[in-house]
């Protein structure tokens, strides 16, 4: 799916064709092909999930309604008629029940929150009062809608109030409605398009994962090599210094969300690191960075080297630098890297960072929360690797443990996230919702394992997935997925060992694996070529189960749940 157009459908009680046009024409990833259903048909289309429009499964749908059209009692609120809040919330519940009618027809559903026109000022000072205040009731309706959809892993409420705020007075033009039944202004559609695209990037694993930062005049003010670390502008009673501290604090919050930080800077490394580790007002210290390249080489090449070290793709990177020449260089040399324009005014750095829409995720797992620490551990691992001779010797020093489990409810969210985000070590690049994944794994002849990796430096978490479907005497590896965090440490071989062990226990004779190429999963092909499996046709690999496949000697397989089906 990652390299194909995502198919989407828009349902609305007003004319939403303009949004379809914006979504189809925008060149950002991912590519989409969107159509708008005839407007004013939301309820009839939701009531009949077997209707013509639902004969195909969509990658995503947007269902955008005005509150009074799907919650009739809200019209009474607008009429200043008495209405019981429980009646209103009951109608919200009925609407969400209808939305769930199509949960098998769309992989992801976006529901913009309800708003009403900015020119309608409600009941003024009474508007937040319970019982009849439009603001009060609309908040409760939106909260109920979000709560009702919370339990679904693939239904999301989008905050359309933000689109309205960004668009200002142009949000609503009554002429658009009277002449074309278009309820909101085009600037609102553009904001919606940007948010929907950000959400689709999250769904398809295209969100950015690594922020690479310059140092001088980016993380602090001034040139540390000239001034010395004691004299850079950072903190203190100085608006610019304060702004740099705030920018660093904001970056630190990004690491809490699972994003990684890196440094690429033209500096003397020891001088720059001294500033990072000694300046009393530095918020970000060495342990906050997954890696760095601090030298006088070309920044584009340094980014390539850093990203390779971290086992990430260039498409995962955002590069932030105050220098427009460096930005232009990286943009030209590395078009996959996102290089946002950056404000000249240092006091605008924090707001520029917070307005980037390239970091969205559809779920936050424990692995996400700990990712930054994991990469710091990895940096320390590599430091040890440089001191130790061969790869095998180094791996032995790590005390690696791999825990294998069959898919279970506790791991479901993280497993679906890994399945949908991993691009490089991914045999077939299937993208599935949690429900689809559960259904698939539950079918007869299907098996899906998850792999947790840890070593003496810490937990890498649930980082691997392998799945098998078997028929007669032959099995096929459907998913073979490993996070880039642990690639190259022979977890790959451990996963194959697990699959082959299970295959032997249920009497399978042969296992095949077919590599489905995407623009990003060449590392998977490279692994299979050297895995010991027999290659044929370039993309098909096979293994005779009667042959012994060795568990890597440095791996402690701590919990092997592989067993024959009853």
């Amino acid at each position: 799916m990652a390299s194909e157009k995502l198919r989407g459908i828009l349902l609305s009680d007003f004319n939403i064709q303009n949004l379809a046009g914006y979504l189809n024409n925008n060149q950002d990833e991912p590519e989409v092909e969107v159509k708008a259903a005839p407007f004013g048909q939301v309820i009839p289309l939701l009531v009949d999930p077997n209707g013509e429009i639902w004969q195909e499964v969509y990658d995503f749908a947007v269902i955008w309604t005005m509150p009074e059209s799907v919650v009739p009692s809200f019209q009474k609120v607008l009429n200043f008629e008495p209405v019981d809040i429980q009646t209103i919330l009951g109608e919200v519940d009925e609407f969400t029940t209808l939305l769930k009618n199509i949960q098998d027809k769309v992989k992801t559903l976006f529901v913009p929150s309800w708003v009403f026109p900015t020119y309608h000022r409600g009941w003024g000072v009474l508007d937040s009062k319970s019982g009849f205040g439009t603001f009060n009731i609309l908040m409760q309706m939106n909260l109920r809608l979000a709560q009702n959809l919370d339990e679904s892993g693939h239904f999301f409420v989008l905050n359309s109030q933000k689109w309205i705020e960004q668009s200002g007075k142009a949000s609503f033009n009554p002429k658009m409605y009277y002449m074309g039944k278009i309820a909101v202004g085009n600037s609102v559609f553009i904001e919606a398009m940007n948010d929907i695209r950000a959400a689709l990037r999250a769904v398809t694993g295209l969100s950015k994962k690594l922020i690479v930062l310059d140092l001088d005049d980016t993380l602090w003010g001034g040139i540390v090599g000239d001034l010395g670390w004691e004299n850079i502008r950072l903190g203190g009673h100085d608006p610019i210094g304060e702004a740099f501290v705030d920018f660093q604090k904001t970056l630190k919050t990004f690491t809490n969300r699972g994003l990684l930080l890196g440094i690429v800077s033209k500096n003397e490394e020891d001088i720059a690191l001294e500033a990072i580790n000694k300046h009393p007002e530095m918020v970000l210290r060495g342990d906050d960075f997954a890696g760095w390249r601090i030298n006088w080489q070309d920044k584009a090449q340094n980014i390539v080297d850093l990203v390779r070290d971290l086992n990430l793709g260039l498409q995962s990177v955002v590069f932030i630098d105050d220098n427009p020449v460096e930005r232009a260089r990286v943009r030209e040399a590395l078009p996959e890297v996102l290089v946002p324009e950056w404000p000249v005014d240092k006091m605008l750095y924090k707001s520029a960072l917070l307005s980037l829409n390239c970091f969205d995720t559809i779920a936050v797992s424990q692995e996400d929360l700990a990712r930054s620490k994991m990469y710091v551990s990895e940096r320390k691992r590599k430091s040890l690797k440089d001191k130790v001779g061969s790869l095998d010797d180094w791996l032995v020093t790590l005390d690696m443990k791999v825990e294998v489990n069959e898919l279970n409810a506790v791991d479901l969210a993280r497993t679906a996230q890994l399945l949908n985000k991993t691009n490089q070590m991914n045999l077939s690049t299937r993208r599935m919702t949690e429900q689809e994944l559960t259904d698939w794994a539950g079918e007869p002849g299907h098996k899906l394992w998850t792999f947790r990796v840890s070593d003496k430096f810490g937990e890498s978490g649930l980082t691997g997935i392998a799945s098998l479907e078997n028929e007669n005497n032959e099995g096929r590896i459907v998913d073979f997925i490993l996070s880039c965090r642990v690639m190259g440490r022979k977890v790959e071989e451990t996963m194959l060992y697990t699959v082959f062990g299970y295959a032997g226990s249920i009497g399978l004779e042969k296992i095949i694996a077919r590599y489905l190429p995407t623009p990003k999963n060449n590392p998977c092909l490279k692994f299979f070529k050297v895995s010991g499996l027999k290659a044929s046709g370039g993309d098909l690999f096979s293994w005779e189960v009667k042959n012994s496949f060795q568990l890597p000697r440095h791996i402690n397989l701590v919990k092997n749940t592989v067993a024959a089906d009853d």
Partner: protein
Amino acid sequence: MSDEKILYIIYAVIDEINEQLEKDQRLDKSLDTVLFGQSGKLDSLGMVNFIVGLEEKVAAETGKEISLADQMMALDEDSPLKTVEGLAQYVYSIVEE
């Protein structure tokens, strides 16, 4: 305010409208582009977007509120206002009133 400024505003609206249109439906930024009617590229939805977009942009750029909708929705097939050049002249005349 010059008639060139009005032309600039119309071209800016064309840029915005083109962001919604498929490639073969996009409007050229030239004086003889036919906007509306049987030989124009804009359908009824495109016409609404164009007229409202032009009204909003003229108000933002000149501070003058103009109302084109009623008149534009009922143009004769041979009306000069259907082309960019004719429309620019007309808008200039009412802005200068």
